[in-house]
């Protein structure tokens, strides 16, 4: 389908303000104006439309952009002094998706950096000597899994990590982000992701966890940060992914959830918004776009015909938005053309792009041999549903729809942390892939 090559002019797909202007509609129309300008060269309205096939993901420029952060960040980056694992993850994951092989010397530095950040009482903080925090723990574990060597895995002290996770776990099933910190649904995802990868999930850790997340589903169908708070794509992805890791996605109202999720795609822009009546943003390509593979699994489990489902959203539209509006000519990706690039948006625009290009689906037929955390190994690509917009070289590596690290890195990590059971499952999955 797509958004660049439609029957009518772009304008006609824009927001209808019903003749009643408010701040929200003004902002939306402003944004559409800006997007229309960058889309124009590719549309039928242009005197000589550029072919969509010419859309090019400037991989090398993005590689250079992220590499630049690894060695030297200027002093204004002090604002992210409590987010070093995040910076490492955003950059290394972007490199992974772009197919750039992480050199040994970088791996060594990543390992040492994380080692010095790990808290003696367990988990990882934002930098050396800082208290552990669930978000930075998530990012650190992912970073080490991306490095993917025994040395990297061995950095993580699993015993103290388990202690840390239990220290922030609340009786109502929620998690505080740090000891004494705020509760919200991100915590559930960060805890479950780190625990799943390192194979330390216990019944104590998961008690009531699903129930808390379910209480965060709002009347709109999406999930908010805390019960009662507005449905928001970031928290929705976190809640959904956590439920998937808990094996409890059935606890959600599937109809309203599906409706809300598909309603987040913007008619004119093709990208996703994070909340009703708010603006498109490239990072939601992952937070919202990332809902659909897991949602697909839920719909299949509820008896939907797999053939009829091809992600209940317009994949082409999303990719076109990312390729045309979110790439900076000098490298890096962004929220929208009026915003500057940053590493966070680079990571999530690329993650969303990858999930849109490759249809990641779940091997239901093998679920009985892969209980608990091991079920993460059952995600694989449906090659016949691959869809790469623009130049074929735009294809990114595949990312895991729940853990958001490259699928081969997930396999490696699981082989390390789960041993033979992981080995067996991977073999079965590969057999199934060849068969289908």
């Amino acid at each position, binding site marked *: *389908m797509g*958004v660049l090559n439609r029957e009518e002019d772009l304008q006609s797909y824009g*927001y*209808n*303000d*019903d*003749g*009643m202007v*408010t*701040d*929200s509609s003004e902002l939306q129309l402003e944004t559409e104006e800006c997007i229309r300008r960058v889309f124009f060269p590719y549309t039928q309205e242009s005197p000589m439309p550029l072919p969509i096939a010419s859309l090019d993901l400037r991989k090398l420029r993005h590689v250079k952009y992220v590499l630049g*952060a690894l060695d*030297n*960040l*200027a*002093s204004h980056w*002090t*604002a*992210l002094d*409590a987010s070093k694992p995040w*910076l*490492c993850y955003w950059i290394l994951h972007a490199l992974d998706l772009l197919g750039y092989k992480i050199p040994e010397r*970088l791996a060594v*530095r990543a390992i040492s*950096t994380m*080692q*010095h950040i790990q808290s003696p009482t367990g988990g990882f903080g*934002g930098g050396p*000597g800082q*208290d552990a*925090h669930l978000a930075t723990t998530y990012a650190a574990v992912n970073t080490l899994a991306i490095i993917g060597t025994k040395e990297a895995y061995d950095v993580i002290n699993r015993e103290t990590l388990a202690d840390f996770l239990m220290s922030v776990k*609340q009786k109502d099933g929620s998690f505080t982000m740090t000891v*004494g*910190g705020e509760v919200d649904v991100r915590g559930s995802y960060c805890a479950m992701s780190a625990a799943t990868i390192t194979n330390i999930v216990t019944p104590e850790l998961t008690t009531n966890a699903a129930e808390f997340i379910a*209480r965060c589903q709002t*009347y*709109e169908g999406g999930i908010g*940060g*805390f*019960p*009662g*708070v*507005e*449905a*928001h794509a970031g928290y929705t992805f976190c809640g959904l992914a956590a439920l998937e890791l808990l094996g409890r996605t059935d606890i959600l109202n599937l109809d309203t959830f*599906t*409706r809300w999720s*598909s309603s987040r*795609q*913007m008619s004119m822009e*093709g990208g996703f918004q994070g*909340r*009703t*009546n*708010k603006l498109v943003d490239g990072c939601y390509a992952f937070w919202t776009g990332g809902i659909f593979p897991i949602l697909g699994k839920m719909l299949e489990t509820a008896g939907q015909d797999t053939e*009829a489902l091809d992600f*209940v*959203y*317009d994949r082409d*539209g999303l990719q076109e938005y990312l390729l045309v509006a979110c790439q900076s000519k000098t490298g890096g990706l962004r929220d929208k053309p009026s915003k500057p690039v940053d590493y966070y948006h680079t990571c999530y625009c690329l993650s969303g792009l990858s999930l849109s290009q490759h249809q990641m689906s779940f091997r239901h037929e093998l679920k009985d041999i892969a209980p608990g955390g091991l079920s993460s190994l059952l995600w694989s690509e449906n090659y016949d549903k691959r869809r790469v917009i623009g130049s074929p070289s735009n294809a990114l590596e595949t990312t895991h729809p729940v853990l958001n690290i490259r699928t081969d890195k997930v396999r490696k990590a699981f082989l390390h942390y789960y041993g033979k059971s992981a080995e067996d499952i991977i073999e079965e999955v590969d057999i199934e892939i060849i068969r289908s």
Partner: protein
Amino acid sequence: MAEQDDMPFYQKPEWADVVPIPQDDGPNPLVPIAYTKEYSTTMDYFRAMCRAQEKSERALDLTKIVIELSPSHYTVWYYRQQLLKELNKDLKEELEWIEWMVNEHPKSYQIWHHRQVVVGRIAQSLLPHNTTTTTTTLTTAQSTEAAFSFDDLPEAQKTAAQELVKSELEFIAESLEDDTKNYHAWSYRQWVLAHFGLGPWWVEELAYTEELIGKDVRNNSAWNQRYFVVTNGPGGLTEEGVQREVQFAKSNIEKTPSNESPWVYLTGVLRKGNHSVTEIKEFCEGLLSVPRANFSPFVHATLLDIYEVEAKEKRSAASVEKAKEEAIMLAEKVDNIRSKYWNWRKTQLQKIDVVA
């Protein structure tokens, strides 16, 4: 205590006994930040305070310096919270400072959480000595079980608590004026209401949501807040409440039929009140003859839902047909970005068991 001189605190005699602890990143770390000398030295002293877990005025002052240099440094916030408690500081003064910080950094998790901690403590101090407030766990089911109980409070404390709630709600409303959808502000607002529970604020809050919706009918955060109020206030969502809210949503839909917020609110309230969406069939069909409204995707989407329910209840092939028409209208004309979703809904319709 604000010093006017340019001398950094660590050069002053009262800090001479402290041995600063340098940051240990290890050799050649990734993402090294070129800290200013002021920042890195301040942090070296902070690390020393933290390591010793020193509970003193100078430690408290230092936390403020660190925070103002790096507001998202959550470790220092926690340490400050512990110091405020240990040193039994005046939390009212703290609130003023937080107000200033929030204006500077309205999207900081740490600052809003700090306010919540401080207000929680002020409230706690008003209670008789042996009570402990349980953590707020607001259920979406019935009415709130407040963590803070006004029962049996002496008049002075009761008034102080009410004043506290009032001033918090005012503070948040002011912050929302700059950004009417600030997620942190709304989350904190819900915490205040839930924590202090049933009270006069629910009526005012309902009026507040009406005011915000009046200013921008597309402010989905205000609509969400309205849902929060009507479902968590005294008595929860009553039948009278359902009717009132249905009317409120309908009147806003009539103003802006292509605005998603009142639509999803309307169907949400009906569902919560155990009413069928078919009850608004006449309303939706009526909108089809209003030129402005008949291309609204939400009119057609809601009709699709309605005809689908009818089809299931009456096992009616005619209803299935009407539902299908809506799905096609949506997929092909009025909402084609979502054509996959609407086509999927159409395939669901085939599965309905009908008598011809």
